[in-house]
């Protein structure tokens, strides 16, 4: 939803901004660290950037999935890193941290809190993430076949190729551009010149797929004047919305993403052009679909961070898109940026946020 103009005499919705962002270096494995040991440095980094302490934070919300590392209730262990005593106002979503940010944004809108800490983390290294992700699928008709995440993305890529909207060289181009951009991102797992490799599941080659790895990210949100106190150039959330496709893969047109388009529309993305877009497209073919759904032309800097093709810590990669877009606004490199997060197979659920800096 977007901010609407306040009615006469009524108090309008609050302005809410991303005021700090931090992420780990993303790596193939972090076996020497537990989740909380991996996460804690980024929590400290965002708090230090704002000068806030845990006790100053009005609401804390996290996103993670125990299935990734096979650790039951790992999110409660992760709370150790926050310092949740005396008891804090806290919530968790079994989703990417972008959806935790959405919950925190609504909490701030209610006026119950002025600041929020949002974090997420994912450790894919202990398990086989391609197999783990099959467990999120329809348990009656799909999950018993164990179609892995690369296979489902490959079905979508082939549909896109059949429709004449891309081809394998174009997809390789998306991969190369993303990893070239990632050379400027010290946190990236995969950057520079990366061989495109053999087919994993045809038509997707290794280079079309995201690296598998571990990582964490954190964001601080603040409302109104509080945001201006905490950050020289807050990244104001002008709109944020999330939508979902029908859950049957065969019901959907896999070459399009109407849920992304609708979320973008509701977030106000089409009201004025953006200069930057951070898209959560773990597979090259998904960037093609998202560019179309979001009507991004060549003038928009797409994934200057390298995107999920450079680092894809599952459950954090969507929040990182919002964080990267906000950080560019903080640094004055963007005035209006779009951030997108996805969840589920073949862009099943999509979240779009529009962020702006003040001149």
């Amino acid at each position: 939803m977007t901010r609407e103009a306040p009615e006469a005499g009524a108090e309008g919705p609050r302005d809410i901004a991303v005021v700090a962002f931090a992420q780990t270096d993303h790596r193939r494995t972090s076996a020497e660290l537990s989740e909380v040991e991996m996460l804690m440095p980024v929590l400290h980094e965002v708090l230090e950037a704002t000068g806030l302490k845990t006790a100053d934070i009005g609401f804390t919300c996290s996103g993670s999935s125990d299935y990734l590392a096979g650790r039951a209730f790992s999110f409660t262990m992760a709370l150790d890193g926050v310092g949740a005593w005396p008891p804090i106002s806290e919530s968790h979503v079994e989703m990417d941290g972008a959806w935790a940010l959405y919950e925190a944004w609504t909490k701030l809108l209610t006026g119950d809190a002025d600041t929020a800490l949002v974090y997420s983390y994912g450790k894919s290294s202990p398990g086989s993430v391609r197999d783990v992700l099959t467990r999120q699928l329809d348990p009656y008709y799909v999950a018993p076949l164990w179609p892995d995440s690369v296979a489902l993305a490959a079905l979508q890529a082939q549909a896109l190729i059949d429709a004449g909207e891309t081809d394998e060289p174009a997809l390789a181009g998306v991969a190369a551009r993303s990893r070239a951009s990632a050379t400027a991102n010290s946190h990236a797992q995969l950057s520079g010149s990366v061989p495109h490799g053999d087919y994993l599941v045809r038509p997707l080659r290794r280079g079309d797929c995201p690296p598998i790895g571990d990582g964490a990210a954190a964001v601080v949100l603040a409302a109104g004047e509080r945001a201006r106190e905490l950050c020289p150039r807050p990244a104001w959330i002008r709109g944020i919305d999330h939508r979902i496709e029908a859950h049957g893969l065969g019901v959907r047109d896999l070459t399009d993403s109407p849920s992304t388009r609708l979320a973008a529309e509701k977030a106000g993305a089409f009201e004025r052009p953006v200069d930057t877009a951070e898209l959560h497209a773990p597979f090259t073919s998904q960037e093609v679909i998202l560019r179309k759904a979001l009507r991004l032309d060549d003038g928009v800097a797409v994934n200057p961070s390298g995107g999920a093709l450079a680092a894809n810590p599952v459950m954090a990669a969507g929040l990182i898109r919002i964080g990267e877009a906000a950080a560019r606004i903080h640094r004055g490199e963007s005035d209006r940026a779009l951030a997108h997060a996805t969840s589920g197979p073949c862009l099943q659920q999509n979240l779009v946020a529009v962020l702006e800096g003040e001149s």
Partner: protein
Amino acid sequence: MPEVLKAPLVVEFPFTRSLGPVQSAFLTGLRERVVLGVRAGDGRVLVPPVEYDPVTAEEIRDLVEVAPTGTVTTWAWNHAPRRGQPLDTPFAWVLVKLDGADTALLHALDAPGPDAVRTGMRVRVRWAGERVGAITDIACFEPYDGDGAPEPTGHDGVFDDLVTGIVAPARLDYTYSPGRAQSGYIAALAERRTVGERCPSCRKVYVPPRGACPTCGVATAEQVEVGPRGTVTTFCIVNIKARNLDIEVPYVYAHIALDGADLALHGRIAGIPYDRVRMGLRVEAVWTDGARYPDHYRPTGEPDADYDTYKELL
């Protein structure tokens, strides 16, 4: 940096799921070699059928039989099948729009190689030899040249002996690593020592350490050896025998604050009748040969600890 500890971890569940009326008819149909779809509010026939309209979210119940033959709408060649997938030789994942259906079903296509697969190709169901009422009753699809497929008989979706549930086994394999703090704890246990970590801020010593002070939210790093003696802070009497556990009931399970620790750990108390265990009882760890952790704790014979010495640890 100590050696990174690793151990295999298997998470395995048989999920038992009940079926709604449409899913029940569809999976029963597969058992009987009948493929059913459901008609949606916009007239489309959805295969596999769902309980609620994907557009309007209304309940839909109008079952329609479709053919076991159809057309590939997209495909992906899987040269390296993974555990649990429909075929253990290279195959194509396919979405198939069955004749009479308006949406596509995900399954595997048995084909000699990627050059034999294309979008638009005709395929038919290969039924599993033994069918139980599950999506895997379709063994896979196979290429179909137009002859020999039975026409749908207009089945009404009513069956005797409906399948009302499925059991879906799920298994995931992990390599577990405990992280820095817990690795230190485990390494010390191997030397029959118990170590915690001290919070640099509040100075509390956590045993076992988890790497962070949950009160202060900062990393703990300073290792502190605690015990080997400690105090029972609270306890319970266990009267139900656990499966695979060779311990006679009743027995006592207790919270034990090892000397020097600011957090109680838990363990079994033995060497004393269960009904004589009490708060404040002084105990020490008992190790058995080859054990990786204390088997139980027994009384030291010291006088009981004063309540004030452990009341903060309850």
